């Protein structure tokens, strides 16, 4: 199973976007199996549960189990499936690839999953920057309607589904499922209080399931090849299936790589089929394993580090969106932390106090340290601010994400921070004279 491409099977092929290519390759067979093969929504849900599929958007929640949270008797309210294509976690670019290169795989996954939860109207919430992805999806949806895979009475089964592409407009927080729901309702994308959970009370007040693009694509293959097949791929039952990994940073060959869940970190970085080692032969200094929201790992910690949900929890980090960002020995960790804090300060929705005030504060302190105006107390201050922002202090876990890079960088590279403060410059890395030390326009630091 090592080398077989399941999710990326058609990527790179000529005309991979067209429905003709997809169907010729066995596409929409799963849909036929389910809709005309007498499957019930419950049977499909059970298969997905048995497969062990866990959400590939960042939270890693078991998908089949999530589907069962839709109330059996939802009092006549419609059920909605929302495909979360808001991919905005720094370091992540797998959903973009899937949508741009193989849109029908995603669409078929959406139709199947909609059937499983008895949804008649589904939306793809795609980030505004993916203009091309939206165009490609819209064209593919048109093709699917034309071929009768969407719309009324699909494949004569009586099941009907409408699918609409809904474009976001620049807000990372709309990747949070309730932020997405609020945005789809035409409001500011401010996450909601949970409970109630979307499965009970979601978009337009109706039961809603939000699933990631890659998760939905997996459903196609679970149907085609069976839950058992899916469950056997990967390190163990709780971490199963094929996985897309996004590799970027100081490696020779950044890119999206498919491998069974649980690929070793070092294999991803150094393997001939993957990253092919560090650019310029430099040494690894730190690796972010799961997007900006994941605690960074040191070079020692990536020895024997399986890239799956439980493997990274064991390392006190997380798989998240499987975005692996590699930093080499020339990287100033303080600067990296400052850059990450800028992201979170920009993307905080602002509704609750600890995050709204804490994220800019963290960024300001890190900026001061980076610019040579730090104090030794600032290092403890960073930890203190972080610790009082998370663990229930906020409405959503954005704050918990924002503090991960701060706590992990300060915790694991404290000496570097101290050096920065005491010497008013970076410990490592060539800093040319015209290099701007801060990533923020200086006018704006004051605000």
């Amino acid at each position, binding site marked *: 199973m090592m080398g077989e491409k399941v999710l990326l099977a058609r990527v790179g092929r000529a005309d991979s976007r067209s429905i003709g290519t997809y169907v010729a390759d066995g596409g929409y067979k799963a849909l036929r199996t389910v809709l005309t093969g007498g499957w019930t929504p419950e049977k499909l849900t059970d298969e997905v549960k048995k497969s062990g599929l866990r959400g590939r958007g960042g939270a890693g929640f078991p998908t089949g189990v999530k589907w069962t949270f839709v109330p059996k008797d939802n009092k006549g309210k419609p059920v909605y499936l929302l495909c979360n294509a808001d991919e905005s976690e720094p370091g992540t*670019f797998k959903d973009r690839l899937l949508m741009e290169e193989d849109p029908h795989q995603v669409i078929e996954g959406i139709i199947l999953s909609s059937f499983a939860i008895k949804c008649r109207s589904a939306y793809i919430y795609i*980030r505004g920057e993916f203009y091309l992805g939206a165009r490609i999806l819209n064209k593919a949806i048109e093709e699917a309607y034309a071929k009768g895979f969407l719309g009324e009475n699909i494949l004569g089964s009586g099941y009907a589904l409408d699918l609409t592409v809904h474009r976001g407009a620049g807000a990372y927080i709309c990747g949070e499922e309730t932020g997405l729901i609020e945005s789809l309702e035409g409001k500011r994308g401010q996450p909601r209080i949970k409970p109630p959970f979307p499965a009970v009370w979601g978009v337009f007040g109706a039961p809603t399931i939000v699933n990631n693009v890659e998760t939905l694509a997996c459903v196609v293959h679970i149907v085609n090849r069976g839950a058992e097949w899916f469950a056997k791929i990967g390190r163990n039952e709780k971490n199963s299936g094929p996985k897309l990994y996004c590799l970027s940073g100081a490696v020779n060959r950044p890119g999206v790589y498919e491998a069974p869940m649980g690929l070793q970190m070092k294999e991803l970085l150094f393997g001939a089929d993957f990253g092919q080692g560090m650019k310029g032969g430099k040494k690894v200094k730190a690796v972010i394993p799961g997007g900006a929201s994941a605690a960074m790992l040191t070079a020692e910690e990536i020895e024997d580090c399986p890239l799956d949900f439980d493997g990274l929890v064991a390392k006190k980090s997380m798989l998240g969106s499987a975005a692996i960002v590699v930093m080499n020995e020339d990287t100033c960790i303080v600067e990296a932390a400052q850059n990450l804090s800028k992201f979170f300060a920009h993307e905080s929705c602002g509704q609750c106090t600890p995050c709204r005030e804490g994220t800019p504060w963290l960024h300001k302190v890190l900026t001061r340290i980076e610019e040579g105006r730090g104090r030794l107390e600032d290092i403890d201050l960073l930890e203190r601010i972080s610790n009082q922002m998370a663990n229930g202090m906020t409405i959503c876990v954005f704050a918990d994400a924002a503090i991960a890079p701060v706590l992990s960088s300060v915790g694991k590279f404290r000496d570097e921070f101290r050096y920065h403060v005491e010497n008013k410059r970076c410990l490592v890395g060539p800093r040319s004279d015209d290099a701007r030390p801060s990533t923020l326009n200086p006018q704006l630091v004051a605000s």
Partner: protein
Amino acid sequence: MSHRRYNLEESGRPAEFPADARARIDRILTRYPTKQAALLPVLWVAQETWGWISKEAAEEVAKILDLSPAHVDGVLTFYTMYNLRPVGKNLLQFCTSISCHLAGAERLMDRCAKRLGIGLEETTPDGKFTIVEVECIAGCDKAPSMMVNDTYYEPMDERKLDALVEKLSADA
């Protein structure tokens, strides 16, 4: 991007959607159970029609969707991709999140800004270029990644950027 999104500007003209845009809006309205849910797509239609969203446009959208203008303002200013002012013909969007940062994105952006003689969020006097800083646009494996209007250019470097700017400058 760090710049504050507080004020709508007046265009000085009433905002009337042309017929084809109006038709698009009508189609959009059929895809949602509430008018309010169509707000983001309709704002995109407005931006595609005028290039930016003026105070008049915001009020017109509010009218069409039965929303208060304040609600429309709240949405408009929350999402960074809606232009609250006219932008240059080429909106140069430089990603400066972690992977692109590691690849020198800010240096590239600053150099470009210096050469064009403008600061961030500013437009060149000839109206051809506006530079903005954006967060991760999912081009991390081809860092530094950037967009010009709706098109990705990645990976970018000084030479390619100079050539691109020259070409776009020459375009009418």
